[in-house]
């Protein structure tokens, strides 16, 4: 696989997956899910 495609894959996962985990973590830590 081309290096630039691998980098894009990792960056995409970090941005979108990381963004979701970051916001879900805030939800869990602060206001909670109730």
């Amino acid at each position: 696989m081309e290096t630039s495609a691998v980098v894009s894959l990792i960056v995409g996962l970090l941005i979108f997956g990381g963004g979701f985990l970051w916001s879900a973590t805030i939800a869990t830590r602060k206001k909670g899910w109730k």
Partner: protein
Amino acid sequence: MRERWTWRGAFIVAAIGSAVGLGNLWRFPYVVYDSGGGAFLIPYLVALLTAGIPLMMLEFTLGSRFLGSAPLAMKRAKPSFEFVGWWAVLAGFGIITYYAAILGWSLRYLWGAFTLEWGADAGNYLFDKVLQLMPVLEAEAYGSLSGISTELIIPFIIGWLAIFLVVFSGIRGLGRVVMVTMPLPFLLILILMVRGLTLPGAVDGLNFYLTPDFTALANTQVWLAAYGQVFFTLSLAMGILIAYASYLPKDSDISNNAFMTSFADALTAFLGGIAVFTTLGYMAGQLNVPVGEVVASGVGLAFVAYPEAINLMPVAPAVIGVIFFVTIFTLGLDSAFSLTEGVVSAVMDKFSLSRRLAAVLVSGLAFLIGLIFVSRGGLLWLDQVDHFINNFGLVTIGLFTCLLIGWGYGAHKIRDQINEHSEVKIGVWFDICIKFITPIVLIILLVLNFIDRIQTPYEGYPAFMQIVGGWGLIAFLFLLGIIFMLFKGRESSAGVDDTSEADKKEV
């Protein structure tokens, strides 16, 4: 007394389920491939942060602050704004009439997947057997309905029964159902992705999908594609998010809810792209052709290219087929619930109807109109109506929402209301996005689409289709929105709390 989500998680899952739809699997991957590959992630993230998330926060705030469906929430912001709420609801109604037809297709394909019924020529299977469109095309009778497709009517009815029963059961019932129908397609996409990644040729597909072309960033069309994709994927301007948020408690964390929903939507689309392109890479390898020759999007991807790729699977192709069409069906189902709920809640608010009666009326009318789209000539009408509602209807509604709320009501008031109960505080950038960036982008999209359509009729369809399913339809929906606003309903003023800190500051 307004209904309430049983817990915050139900709202989040329902909002994600609404945003994550068919477009995540059949549109996003193609747009990425077509707009610079991995480089497209940059404009997409920018569009998400400057248009998608701010507009989603705005809609969540309107719903939770004014405790009403889109028309009622807009009316409570300022009485003369009600028509925009109706435009959004009517556009959502228009979409659900044909969206349910696509659910019917996916159910029909799910049935056929057990035996790989589509055979070697999936295109012929779709157009001739399932849609029964070929006689219409051969006779060049564009616009003719030519009777209902006998293959689609039963799946269409089953799809509508599922939508109706869930909306009929109320917000609590919907909250329970989406706990299954939202995570399920996500898990199935993961399974399809793992299957795709383990196939020979997957790397070629991924290279096609993600190899960045940074010169694309200099192309205005790529940036507009990013804003267009963000706008269409997040269920904005359809009255859905306002209705869903109206069932939230007032102290909800709006900014966090919006971030979570938007990133979950983007993540699903990104992973969906991996599932699609690894499989297409494999297919290209098996056929000994470049990946570019098998790449497709929309209906062509889901109902022609992917089934043909399934035929070539080395192990248990029928299982992959079933998984894929369960994914397609459940992806669309949550979005269908939300579209119907947006209309039902507006009808309940305006006419003081019970949920059950509103659900019967809305679902019944949408079902009857939807018969057009399961007719033999229905695909052409679906294509026409979808193009105009998306590119002219939703873009105009989004523009008016930004202008009226941003300038007329006050973006700063919305921001204050968001910050009252949110952990992540929103800065003045929110005002800039709502008052300037998003409207400017939407105006550009609208003007470009308009010029395009004036120069060439969409898909070369005949003039009466352009009028009835295009310009006339949009004009009719907008006129109907104004009539609904002028019609004095029977909604009560109960439920609005005028004691928020943001309002006190205004006094």
